[in-house]
Protein backbone atom coordinates (compact mmCIF):
# COMPACT_ATOMS: atom_id res chain seq x y z
CA UNK A 1 0.00 0.00 0.00
CA UNK A 2 1.41 3.40 -0.95
CA UNK A 3 1.35 6.43 1.31
CA UNK A 4 -1.60 8.10 -0.47
CA UNK A 5 -3.64 4.89 -0.40
CA UNK A 6 -2.99 4.61 3.32
CA UNK A 7 -4.14 8.19 3.81
CA UNK A 8 -7.31 7.54 1.85
CA UNK A 9 -7.92 4.45 3.99
CA UNK A 10 -7.53 6.53 7.17
CA UNK A 11 -9.91 9.22 5.86
CA UNK A 12 -12.54 6.54 5.38
CA UNK A 13 -11.89 4.89 8.79
CA UNK A 14 -12.32 8.26 10.51
CA UNK A 15 -15.84 8.60 9.04
CA UNK A 16 -17.14 5.05 9.54
CA UNK A 17 -19.45 4.64 12.53
CA UNK A 18 -20.13 8.37 12.85
CA UNK A 19 -23.68 9.60 12.24
CA UNK A 20 -24.37 11.82 9.24
CA UNK A 21 -26.35 15.07 9.43
CA UNK A 22 -27.29 17.48 6.64
CA UNK A 23 -24.94 20.50 6.91
CA UNK A 24 -26.85 23.50 8.38
CA UNK A 25 -27.85 26.34 6.02
CA UNK A 26 -25.93 28.86 8.15
CA UNK A 27 -22.60 27.39 9.14
CA UNK A 28 -21.68 29.64 12.08
CA UNK A 29 -23.64 28.45 15.13
CA UNK A 30 -23.71 31.84 16.94
CA UNK A 31 -25.06 33.58 13.82
CA UNK A 32 -27.70 30.88 13.38
CA UNK A 33 -28.94 31.26 16.95
CA UNK A 34 -28.72 35.07 16.88
CA UNK A 35 -30.89 35.24 13.76
CA UNK A 36 -33.44 32.80 15.19
CA UNK A 37 -33.76 34.53 18.56
CA UNK A 38 -33.77 37.97 16.93
CA UNK A 39 -36.69 36.98 14.72
CA UNK A 40 -38.67 35.69 17.72
CA UNK A 41 -38.04 38.88 19.75
CA UNK A 42 -39.09 41.05 16.81
CA UNK A 43 -42.28 39.04 16.33
CA UNK A 44 -43.19 39.39 20.03
CA UNK A 45 -42.57 43.17 19.98
CA UNK A 46 -44.51 43.60 16.75
CA UNK A 47 -47.56 41.75 18.08
CA UNK A 48 -47.39 43.74 21.33
CA UNK A 49 -47.31 47.04 19.40
CA UNK A 50 -50.65 46.47 17.64
CA UNK A 51 -53.33 48.44 19.52
CA UNK A 52 -56.71 46.78 19.72
CA UNK A 53 -59.69 48.76 20.95
CA UNK A 54 -61.77 45.88 22.28
CA UNK A 55 -64.78 48.11 23.03
CA UNK A 56 -64.86 49.21 19.38
CA UNK A 57 -64.55 45.63 18.20
CA UNK A 58 -67.50 44.67 20.39
CA UNK A 59 -69.66 47.43 18.88
CA UNK A 60 -68.58 46.47 15.38
CA UNK A 61 -69.70 42.88 15.84
CA UNK A 62 -73.32 43.99 15.38
CA UNK A 63 -72.52 45.69 12.08
CA UNK A 64 -70.62 42.63 10.96
CA UNK A 65 -73.58 40.44 11.86
CA UNK A 66 -75.95 42.68 9.87
CA UNK A 67 -73.60 42.40 6.90
CA UNK A 68 -73.44 38.64 7.10
CA UNK A 69 -77.20 38.42 7.60
CA UNK A 70 -77.62 40.42 4.39
CA UNK A 71 -75.78 37.69 2.53
CA UNK A 72 -78.51 35.30 3.61
CA UNK A 73 -81.06 37.46 1.81
CA UNK A 74 -79.23 39.06 -1.16
CA UNK A 75 -81.37 41.52 -3.07
CA UNK A 76 -80.85 41.19 -6.80
CA UNK A 77 -84.13 42.88 -7.74
CA UNK A 78 -84.45 46.42 -6.39
CA UNK A 79 -81.31 47.76 -8.08
CA UNK A 80 -81.37 45.27 -10.96
CA UNK A 81 -80.82 47.81 -13.74
CA UNK A 82 -77.86 49.43 -11.89
CA UNK A 83 -76.30 46.03 -11.25
CA UNK A 84 -76.83 44.99 -14.86
CA UNK A 85 -75.28 48.20 -16.23
CA UNK A 86 -72.34 47.95 -13.82
CA UNK A 87 -71.67 44.31 -14.63
CA UNK A 88 -71.80 44.98 -18.35
CA UNK A 89 -69.36 47.86 -17.95
CA UNK A 90 -67.00 45.68 -15.89
CA UNK A 91 -67.09 42.88 -18.44
CA UNK A 92 -66.48 45.28 -21.33
CA UNK A 93 -63.55 46.84 -19.43
CA UNK A 94 -62.13 43.40 -18.61
CA UNK A 95 -62.36 42.02 -22.14
CA UNK A 96 -61.07 45.16 -23.85
CA UNK A 97 -58.22 45.67 -21.38
CA UNK A 98 -57.22 41.98 -21.54
CA UNK A 99 -57.16 41.91 -25.35
CA UNK A 100 -55.16 45.13 -25.64
CA UNK A 101 -52.91 44.27 -22.68
CA UNK A 102 -52.08 40.76 -23.91
CA UNK A 103 -51.52 42.01 -27.46
CA UNK A 104 -49.03 44.62 -26.28
CA UNK A 105 -47.41 42.25 -23.76
CA UNK A 106 -46.17 39.79 -26.39
CA UNK A 107 -43.74 42.16 -28.18
CA UNK A 108 -42.70 43.73 -24.88
CA UNK A 109 -42.19 40.31 -23.30
CA UNK A 110 -39.98 39.30 -26.25
CA UNK A 111 -38.08 42.57 -25.91
CA UNK A 112 -37.57 42.00 -22.20
CA UNK A 113 -36.02 38.54 -22.66
CA UNK A 114 -32.25 38.87 -22.68
CA UNK A 115 -31.69 35.78 -24.86
CA UNK A 116 -33.92 37.13 -27.65
CA UNK A 117 -33.53 40.92 -27.64
CA UNK A 118 -30.45 43.15 -28.00
CA UNK A 119 -29.38 45.10 -24.91
CA UNK A 120 -30.96 48.55 -25.67
CA UNK A 121 -34.36 46.98 -26.45
CA UNK A 122 -34.05 44.81 -23.36
CA UNK A 123 -33.37 47.80 -21.10
CA UNK A 124 -36.23 49.83 -22.58
CA UNK A 125 -38.73 46.98 -22.16
CA UNK A 126 -37.53 46.12 -18.65
CA UNK A 127 -37.86 49.81 -17.74
CA UNK A 128 -41.44 49.94 -18.99
CA UNK A 129 -42.27 46.77 -17.03
CA UNK A 130 -40.69 48.20 -13.88
CA UNK A 131 -42.78 51.39 -14.17
CA UNK A 132 -45.96 49.41 -14.75
CA UNK A 133 -45.31 47.15 -11.77
CA UNK A 134 -44.21 49.93 -9.42
CA UNK A 135 -47.69 51.48 -9.28
CA UNK A 136 -50.62 49.64 -7.83
CA UNK A 137 -53.75 49.63 -10.05
CA UNK A 138 -55.69 51.93 -7.73
CA UNK A 139 -52.96 54.58 -7.82
CA UNK A 140 -52.79 54.43 -11.63
CA UNK A 141 -56.59 54.63 -11.75
CA UNK A 142 -56.66 57.75 -9.55
CA UNK A 143 -54.17 59.42 -11.91
CA UNK A 144 -56.06 58.36 -15.05
CA UNK A 145 -59.42 59.42 -13.60
CA UNK A 146 -57.85 62.83 -13.00
CA UNK A 147 -56.80 62.96 -16.66
CA UNK A 148 -59.75 61.32 -18.46
CA UNK A 149 -62.56 61.98 -15.97
CA UNK A 150 -64.88 59.46 -14.28
CA UNK A 151 -65.92 56.42 -16.28
CA UNK A 152 -64.78 53.16 -17.79
CA UNK A 153 -62.16 54.68 -20.12
CA UNK A 154 -59.88 55.34 -17.15
CA UNK A 155 -60.55 51.80 -15.87
CA UNK A 156 -59.83 50.26 -19.25
CA UNK A 157 -56.51 52.10 -19.56
CA UNK A 158 -55.53 51.22 -15.99
CA UNK A 159 -56.17 47.53 -16.50
CA UNK A 160 -54.37 47.48 -19.87
CA UNK A 161 -51.33 49.12 -18.31
CA UNK A 162 -51.31 46.73 -15.35
CA UNK A 163 -51.73 43.71 -17.67
CA UNK A 164 -48.66 44.75 -19.64
CA UNK A 165 -46.49 44.89 -16.52
CA UNK A 166 -47.71 41.56 -15.21
CA UNK A 167 -47.78 39.53 -18.40
CA UNK A 168 -44.62 40.89 -20.07
CA UNK A 169 -42.53 40.17 -16.99
CA UNK A 170 -43.70 36.59 -16.56
CA UNK A 171 -43.56 35.97 -20.30
CA UNK A 172 -40.00 37.31 -20.51
CA UNK A 173 -38.96 35.05 -17.66
CA UNK A 174 -40.48 32.04 -19.42
CA UNK A 175 -38.66 32.94 -22.65
CA UNK A 176 -35.37 33.31 -20.77
CA UNK A 177 -35.84 29.84 -19.32
CA UNK A 178 -36.60 28.21 -22.68
CA UNK A 179 -34.63 25.34 -24.18
CA UNK A 180 -31.86 27.11 -26.09
CA UNK A 181 -31.06 24.16 -28.34
CA UNK A 182 -34.53 23.95 -29.91
CA UNK A 183 -34.28 27.61 -30.88
CA UNK A 184 -30.69 27.15 -32.04
CA UNK A 185 -31.76 24.33 -34.38
CA UNK A 186 -34.25 26.64 -36.08
CA UNK A 187 -31.63 29.37 -36.41
CA UNK A 188 -29.21 26.90 -38.02
CA UNK A 189 -31.64 26.38 -40.94
CA UNK A 190 -31.09 29.99 -42.09
CA UNK A 191 -34.39 31.31 -40.69
CA UNK A 192 -34.99 35.06 -40.38
CA UNK A 193 -35.52 36.59 -36.94
CA UNK A 194 -39.33 36.54 -37.15
CA UNK A 195 -39.33 32.97 -38.47
CA UNK A 196 -36.99 32.02 -35.69
CA UNK A 197 -39.38 33.48 -33.10
CA UNK A 198 -42.37 31.84 -34.77
CA UNK A 199 -40.84 28.35 -35.06
CA UNK A 200 -38.18 28.13 -32.39
CA UNK A 201 -39.41 30.35 -29.54
CA UNK A 202 -43.19 30.75 -29.77
CA UNK A 203 -44.05 27.04 -29.40
CA UNK A 204 -42.06 27.02 -26.18
CA UNK A 205 -43.81 29.96 -24.49
CA UNK A 206 -47.33 29.50 -25.90
CA UNK A 207 -48.79 27.25 -23.15
CA UNK A 208 -47.49 29.61 -20.47
CA UNK A 209 -48.85 32.63 -22.35
CA UNK A 210 -52.31 31.08 -22.60
CA UNK A 211 -52.32 30.07 -18.93
CA UNK A 212 -51.15 33.49 -17.77
CA UNK A 213 -53.65 35.26 -20.03
CA UNK A 214 -56.53 33.29 -18.52
CA UNK A 215 -55.27 34.15 -15.06
CA UNK A 216 -54.93 37.81 -15.98
CA UNK A 217 -58.53 37.99 -17.32
CA UNK A 218 -59.58 36.70 -13.91
CA UNK A 219 -57.48 39.35 -12.13
CA UNK A 220 -58.73 42.11 -14.43
CA UNK A 221 -62.33 41.30 -13.62
CA UNK A 222 -61.67 41.38 -9.86
CA UNK A 223 -59.71 44.62 -10.21
CA UNK A 224 -62.53 46.18 -12.21
CA UNK A 225 -64.67 45.82 -9.07
CA UNK A 226 -62.08 47.73 -7.03
CA UNK A 227 -61.47 50.44 -9.63
CA UNK A 228 -65.10 51.57 -9.38
CA UNK A 229 -64.36 52.72 -5.83
CA UNK A 230 -62.07 55.45 -7.20
CA UNK A 231 -64.45 56.39 -10.01
CA UNK A 232 -62.95 54.38 -12.86
CA UNK A 233 -66.25 52.76 -13.84
CA UNK A 234 -67.50 49.20 -13.67
CA UNK A 235 -69.39 47.20 -11.05
CA UNK A 236 -67.26 48.75 -8.30
CA UNK A 237 -69.13 52.04 -8.69
CA UNK A 238 -72.46 50.27 -8.14
CA UNK A 239 -71.01 48.39 -5.18
CA UNK A 240 -69.71 51.61 -3.65
CA UNK A 241 -73.11 53.29 -3.98
CA UNK A 242 -74.78 50.31 -2.29
CA UNK A 243 -72.39 50.52 0.66
CA UNK A 244 -72.87 54.29 0.93
CA UNK A 245 -76.63 53.80 1.20
CA UNK A 246 -76.21 50.95 3.74
CA UNK A 247 -77.97 48.65 1.25
CA UNK A 248 -76.08 45.60 2.43
CA UNK A 249 -78.47 43.19 0.71
CA UNK A 250 -77.78 44.78 -2.70
CA UNK A 251 -74.05 44.85 -1.94
CA UNK A 252 -74.28 41.18 -1.04
CA UNK A 253 -76.00 40.43 -4.35
CA UNK A 254 -73.17 42.19 -6.23
CA UNK A 255 -70.46 40.39 -4.27
CA UNK A 256 -72.11 37.03 -4.87
CA UNK A 257 -72.19 37.73 -8.61
CA UNK A 258 -68.53 38.74 -8.59
CA UNK A 259 -67.62 35.55 -6.72
CA UNK A 260 -69.67 33.46 -9.15
CA UNK A 261 -67.99 35.01 -12.21
CA UNK A 262 -64.50 34.67 -10.73
CA UNK A 263 -65.14 31.02 -9.90
CA UNK A 264 -66.50 30.47 -13.41
CA UNK A 265 -63.36 32.00 -14.92
CA UNK A 266 -61.19 29.91 -12.61
CA UNK A 267 -62.94 26.74 -13.74
CA UNK A 268 -62.60 27.77 -17.38
CA UNK A 269 -58.89 28.56 -17.06
CA UNK A 270 -58.33 25.15 -15.46
CA UNK A 271 -59.87 23.45 -18.49
CA UNK A 272 -57.95 25.61 -20.96
CA UNK A 273 -54.61 25.12 -19.21
CA UNK A 274 -55.07 21.36 -19.11
CA UNK A 275 -55.72 21.33 -22.86
CA UNK A 276 -52.76 23.42 -24.04
CA UNK A 277 -49.93 21.57 -22.30
Amino acid sequence: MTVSEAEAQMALEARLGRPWRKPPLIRRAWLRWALGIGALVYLALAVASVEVNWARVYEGLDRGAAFIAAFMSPDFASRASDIYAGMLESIVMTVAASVVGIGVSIPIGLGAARNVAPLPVYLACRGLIAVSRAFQEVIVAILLVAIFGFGPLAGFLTLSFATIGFLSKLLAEDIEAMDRVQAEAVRATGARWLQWINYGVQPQFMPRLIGLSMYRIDINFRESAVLGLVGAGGIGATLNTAFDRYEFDTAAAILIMIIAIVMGLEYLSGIVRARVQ
Partner: protein
Amino acid sequence: MLRLEKLTKTYPTGDMALQAVDLEIPAGQIVALIGPSGAGKSTLIRCINRLVEPSSGAAWLDDVNLTRLSQAALRRQRRRMGMIFQEYALVERLTVMENVLSGRLGYVGFWRSFTRRFPQKNVDEAYRLLDRVGLLDMADKRADELSGGQRQRVGICRALIQDPALLLVDEPTASLDPKTSRQIMRLIVELCAERGLAAIINIHDVALAQMFVNRVIGLQKGRVVFDGPPDALTAEVLTQIYGEEDWEATIRKPEDEDEAEAAPLPAGAGGA
Protein backbone atom coordinates in the same frame (compact mmCIF):
# COMPACT_ATOMS: atom_id res chain seq x y z
CA MET B 1 -15.40 21.99 -50.30
CA LEU B 2 -14.87 23.05 -46.69
CA ARG B 3 -11.57 24.55 -45.62
CA LEU B 4 -10.75 25.84 -42.15
CA GLU B 5 -7.76 28.16 -41.81
CA LYS B 6 -6.37 28.82 -38.34
CA LEU B 7 -9.90 28.80 -36.95
CA THR B 8 -9.70 29.97 -33.34
CA LYS B 9 -12.29 30.44 -30.64
CA THR B 10 -11.59 31.89 -27.21
CA TYR B 11 -14.64 32.18 -24.98
CA PRO B 12 -15.06 35.29 -22.79
CA THR B 13 -14.16 33.07 -19.82
CA GLY B 14 -10.68 32.70 -21.33
CA ASP B 15 -11.36 29.10 -22.31
CA MET B 16 -9.42 28.45 -25.55
CA ALA B 17 -11.85 26.05 -27.19
CA LEU B 18 -10.18 26.07 -30.63
CA GLN B 19 -6.54 26.90 -31.26
CA ALA B 20 -5.75 27.61 -34.91
CA VAL B 21 -7.47 24.58 -36.41
CA ASP B 22 -6.56 23.86 -40.06
CA LEU B 23 -8.72 21.35 -41.86
CA GLU B 24 -9.79 20.55 -45.39
CA ILE B 25 -12.71 18.34 -46.31
CA PRO B 26 -13.38 17.49 -49.97
CA ALA B 27 -16.92 17.19 -51.36
CA GLY B 28 -18.69 13.99 -50.36
CA GLN B 29 -16.27 12.99 -47.60
CA ILE B 30 -17.55 11.89 -44.22
CA VAL B 31 -15.31 12.74 -41.30
CA ALA B 32 -15.64 11.66 -37.68
CA LEU B 33 -14.43 14.15 -35.10
CA ILE B 34 -13.43 12.45 -31.85
CA GLY B 35 -11.99 13.76 -28.62
CA PRO B 36 -12.73 14.03 -24.90
CA SER B 37 -15.51 16.23 -23.53
CA GLY B 38 -14.41 19.86 -23.68
CA ALA B 39 -11.96 19.26 -26.55
CA GLY B 40 -13.86 21.74 -28.71
CA LYS B 41 -15.77 19.37 -31.01
CA SER B 42 -19.11 21.14 -30.56
CA THR B 43 -17.47 24.55 -30.80
CA LEU B 44 -15.76 23.54 -34.04
CA ILE B 45 -18.93 22.69 -35.92
CA ARG B 46 -20.81 25.64 -34.41
CA CYS B 47 -18.06 27.99 -35.58
CA ILE B 48 -18.63 26.76 -39.14
CA ASN B 49 -22.31 27.80 -39.28
CA ARG B 50 -21.60 30.56 -36.76
CA LEU B 51 -24.01 29.54 -34.05
CA VAL B 52 -20.81 30.36 -32.18
CA GLU B 53 -18.81 33.32 -33.51
CA PRO B 54 -15.18 32.33 -34.12
CA SER B 55 -12.57 34.70 -32.65
CA SER B 56 -10.24 34.60 -35.64
CA GLY B 57 -9.31 32.54 -38.67
CA ALA B 58 -11.42 31.64 -41.68
CA ALA B 59 -13.87 28.97 -42.73
CA TRP B 60 -14.33 28.62 -46.49
CA LEU B 61 -17.36 26.85 -47.92
CA ASP B 62 -16.37 26.51 -51.58
CA ASP B 63 -15.28 30.10 -52.32
CA VAL B 64 -17.26 31.88 -49.57
CA ASN B 65 -15.55 32.94 -46.38
CA LEU B 66 -18.22 32.16 -43.79
CA THR B 67 -16.54 34.13 -41.02
CA ARG B 68 -16.90 37.45 -42.86
CA LEU B 69 -20.55 37.30 -43.96
CA SER B 70 -23.26 39.84 -43.14
CA GLN B 71 -26.35 38.50 -41.35
CA ALA B 72 -28.35 38.18 -44.58
CA ALA B 73 -25.54 36.44 -46.46
CA LEU B 74 -24.93 34.17 -43.48
CA ARG B 75 -28.58 33.08 -43.57
CA ARG B 76 -28.19 32.18 -47.26
CA GLN B 77 -25.07 30.12 -46.52
CA ARG B 78 -26.68 28.39 -43.53
CA ARG B 79 -29.17 26.88 -45.97
CA ARG B 80 -26.26 24.92 -47.46
CA MET B 81 -25.25 23.49 -44.08
CA GLY B 82 -27.69 21.07 -42.49
CA MET B 83 -27.21 20.47 -38.79
CA ILE B 84 -28.11 17.41 -36.74
CA PHE B 85 -28.04 17.78 -32.96
CA GLN B 86 -27.30 15.87 -29.82
CA GLU B 87 -30.65 15.28 -28.03
CA TYR B 88 -32.32 15.90 -31.43
CA ALA B 89 -33.28 19.56 -30.76
CA LEU B 90 -36.68 19.18 -32.35
CA VAL B 91 -39.16 21.88 -31.41
CA GLU B 92 -41.16 19.63 -29.13
CA ARG B 93 -44.56 21.30 -29.34
CA LEU B 94 -44.58 21.42 -33.14
CA THR B 95 -45.70 18.51 -35.29
CA VAL B 96 -43.21 16.24 -37.04
CA MET B 97 -44.16 17.85 -40.37
CA GLU B 98 -43.60 21.38 -39.02
CA ASN B 99 -40.22 20.30 -37.71
CA VAL B 100 -39.22 18.85 -41.07
CA LEU B 101 -40.54 21.84 -43.02
CA SER B 102 -38.70 24.23 -40.69
CA GLY B 103 -35.64 23.12 -42.67
CA ARG B 104 -37.03 25.26 -45.52
CA LEU B 105 -37.29 28.45 -43.45
CA GLY B 106 -34.21 29.88 -45.11
CA TYR B 107 -35.93 29.63 -48.50
CA VAL B 108 -39.53 30.77 -47.90
CA GLY B 109 -40.88 34.15 -46.85
CA PHE B 110 -42.23 34.95 -43.40
CA TRP B 111 -45.95 34.85 -44.30
CA ARG B 112 -45.66 31.52 -46.04
CA SER B 113 -43.96 30.00 -43.02
CA PHE B 114 -46.25 31.78 -40.53
CA THR B 115 -49.38 30.42 -42.22
CA ARG B 116 -47.67 27.03 -42.74
CA ARG B 117 -48.38 27.19 -46.50
CA PHE B 118 -45.14 25.77 -47.85
CA PRO B 119 -44.70 25.21 -51.60
CA GLN B 120 -46.12 21.86 -52.71
CA LYS B 121 -42.63 20.81 -53.85
CA ASN B 122 -41.39 21.13 -50.23
CA VAL B 123 -44.37 19.27 -48.80
CA ASP B 124 -43.82 16.41 -51.25
CA GLU B 125 -40.13 16.30 -50.42
CA ALA B 126 -40.92 16.26 -46.70
CA TYR B 127 -43.21 13.26 -47.20
CA ARG B 128 -40.55 11.49 -49.29
CA LEU B 129 -37.92 12.03 -46.61
CA LEU B 130 -40.23 10.87 -43.82
CA ASP B 131 -41.04 7.80 -45.86
CA ARG B 132 -37.32 7.19 -46.45
CA VAL B 133 -36.67 7.11 -42.68
CA GLY B 134 -39.83 5.09 -42.00
CA LEU B 135 -41.87 7.78 -40.25
CA LEU B 136 -44.52 8.67 -42.86
CA ASP B 137 -47.36 7.74 -40.46
CA MET B 138 -45.98 10.08 -37.80
CA ALA B 139 -46.20 13.24 -39.94
CA ASP B 140 -48.97 14.87 -37.89
CA LYS B 141 -47.85 13.62 -34.47
CA ARG B 142 -46.29 16.10 -32.09
CA ALA B 143 -42.51 15.75 -31.92
CA ASP B 144 -42.53 15.01 -28.17
CA GLU B 145 -44.63 11.88 -28.78
CA LEU B 146 -41.77 10.16 -30.61
CA SER B 147 -39.03 7.92 -29.20
CA GLY B 148 -35.39 9.00 -29.23
CA GLY B 149 -34.46 7.16 -32.41
CA GLN B 150 -37.56 8.43 -34.20
CA ARG B 151 -36.82 12.01 -33.14
CA GLN B 152 -33.30 11.82 -34.46
CA ARG B 153 -34.64 10.59 -37.81
CA VAL B 154 -36.93 13.62 -37.94
CA GLY B 155 -33.85 15.72 -37.16
CA ILE B 156 -32.10 14.10 -40.13
CA CYS B 157 -35.07 14.92 -42.39
CA ARG B 158 -35.01 18.54 -41.21
CA ALA B 159 -31.34 18.82 -42.12
CA LEU B 160 -31.75 17.11 -45.51
CA ILE B 161 -34.77 19.11 -46.69
CA GLN B 162 -32.49 22.16 -46.63
CA ASP B 163 -30.82 20.57 -49.68
CA PRO B 164 -27.42 21.12 -48.06
CA ALA B 165 -23.94 20.50 -49.42
CA LEU B 166 -22.53 19.82 -45.96
CA LEU B 167 -23.91 18.16 -42.85
CA LEU B 168 -22.75 19.26 -39.41
CA VAL B 169 -23.59 16.46 -37.02
CA ASP B 170 -23.17 16.96 -33.27
CA GLU B 171 -23.15 13.75 -31.20
CA PRO B 172 -26.05 12.16 -33.11
CA THR B 173 -26.11 9.03 -30.97
CA ALA B 174 -25.23 10.40 -27.52
CA SER B 175 -28.59 9.56 -25.96
CA LEU B 176 -29.51 6.48 -27.98
CA ASP B 177 -29.15 2.78 -27.21
CA PRO B 178 -26.39 0.85 -29.05
CA LYS B 179 -28.64 -0.67 -31.69
CA THR B 180 -30.46 2.58 -32.50
CA SER B 181 -27.09 4.35 -32.53
CA ARG B 182 -25.86 2.09 -35.29
CA GLN B 183 -29.07 2.48 -37.26
CA ILE B 184 -28.85 6.26 -37.04
CA MET B 185 -25.16 6.32 -38.02
CA ARG B 186 -25.84 3.98 -40.94
CA LEU B 187 -28.76 6.14 -42.06
CA ILE B 188 -26.65 9.30 -41.97
CA VAL B 189 -23.81 7.67 -43.89
CA GLU B 190 -26.17 6.14 -46.47
CA LEU B 191 -28.00 9.40 -47.06
CA CYS B 192 -24.72 11.29 -47.42
CA ALA B 193 -23.57 8.78 -50.00
CA GLU B 194 -26.87 8.97 -51.93
CA ARG B 195 -26.73 12.74 -52.09
CA GLY B 196 -22.98 13.21 -52.29
CA LEU B 197 -22.87 15.26 -49.08
CA ALA B 198 -19.81 15.96 -47.03
CA ALA B 199 -20.30 15.56 -43.29
CA ILE B 200 -18.51 16.27 -40.04
CA ILE B 201 -19.75 13.95 -37.32
CA ASN B 202 -18.84 14.66 -33.70
CA ILE B 203 -18.90 11.39 -31.87
CA HIS B 204 -17.95 10.00 -28.47
CA ASP B 205 -18.07 6.37 -29.44
CA VAL B 206 -14.74 5.55 -31.08
CA ALA B 207 -15.77 2.05 -32.15
CA LEU B 208 -18.92 3.38 -33.80
CA ALA B 209 -16.92 6.03 -35.65
CA GLN B 210 -14.46 3.41 -36.93
CA MET B 211 -17.33 1.32 -38.18
CA PHE B 212 -18.83 3.97 -40.45
CA VAL B 213 -16.31 6.55 -41.63
CA ASN B 214 -13.15 6.65 -43.71
CA ARG B 215 -11.43 9.51 -41.98
CA VAL B 216 -11.08 10.28 -38.30
CA ILE B 217 -9.88 13.55 -36.79
CA GLY B 218 -8.80 13.63 -33.15
CA LEU B 219 -9.21 16.86 -31.25
CA GLN B 220 -7.57 17.53 -27.94
CA LYS B 221 -7.74 20.84 -26.07
CA GLY B 222 -8.74 22.67 -29.23
CA ARG B 223 -5.96 21.26 -31.44
CA VAL B 224 -5.99 18.59 -34.13
CA VAL B 225 -3.75 15.81 -32.80
CA PHE B 226 -4.74 13.05 -35.21
CA ASP B 227 -5.96 12.94 -38.80
CA GLY B 228 -6.05 9.63 -40.60
CA PRO B 229 -7.96 6.47 -41.51
CA PRO B 230 -9.83 4.60 -38.76
CA ASP B 231 -7.34 1.70 -38.87
CA ALA B 232 -4.56 4.03 -37.75
CA LEU B 233 -6.28 4.60 -34.40
CA THR B 234 -3.92 2.62 -32.21
CA ALA B 235 -3.77 2.48 -28.44
CA GLU B 236 -0.97 5.09 -28.53
CA VAL B 237 -3.08 7.48 -30.61
CA LEU B 238 -6.11 7.08 -28.34
CA THR B 239 -3.90 7.70 -25.31
CA GLN B 240 -2.66 10.86 -26.97
CA ILE B 241 -6.23 12.06 -27.61
CA TYR B 242 -7.99 10.94 -24.45
CA GLY B 243 -5.28 10.12 -21.89
CA GLU B 244 -4.07 6.92 -20.27
CA GLU B 245 -6.54 3.99 -20.30
CA ASP B 246 -6.74 0.39 -21.46
CA TRP B 247 -7.76 0.79 -25.09
CA GLU B 248 -7.58 -2.80 -26.32
CA ALA B 249 -11.33 -3.43 -25.92
CA THR B 250 -12.25 -0.22 -27.81
CA ILE B 251 -10.16 -0.74 -30.92
CA ARG B 252 -12.11 -2.41 -33.68
CA LYS B 253 -11.16 -5.90 -34.67
CA PRO B 254 -11.78 -7.05 -38.24
CA GLU B 255 -14.40 -9.69 -37.29
CA ASP B 256 -16.64 -7.00 -35.74
CA GLU B 257 -17.62 -5.77 -39.15
CA ASP B 258 -20.02 -8.57 -40.01
CA GLU B 259 -21.80 -8.13 -36.74
CA ALA B 260 -22.20 -4.43 -37.46
CA GLU B 261 -24.28 -5.23 -40.51
CA ALA B 262 -26.61 -7.52 -38.57
CA ALA B 263 -28.95 -4.77 -37.37
CA PRO B 264 -31.14 -3.80 -40.33
CA LEU B 265 -32.91 -0.46 -40.44
CA PRO B 266 -36.69 -0.92 -40.27
CA ALA B 267 -38.63 0.46 -43.25
CA GLY B 268 -35.44 1.66 -44.86
CA ALA B 269 -36.72 0.65 -48.28
CA GLY B 270 -38.83 3.72 -49.01
CA GLY B 271 -38.53 5.62 -52.29
CA ALA B 272 -36.09 8.52 -52.09
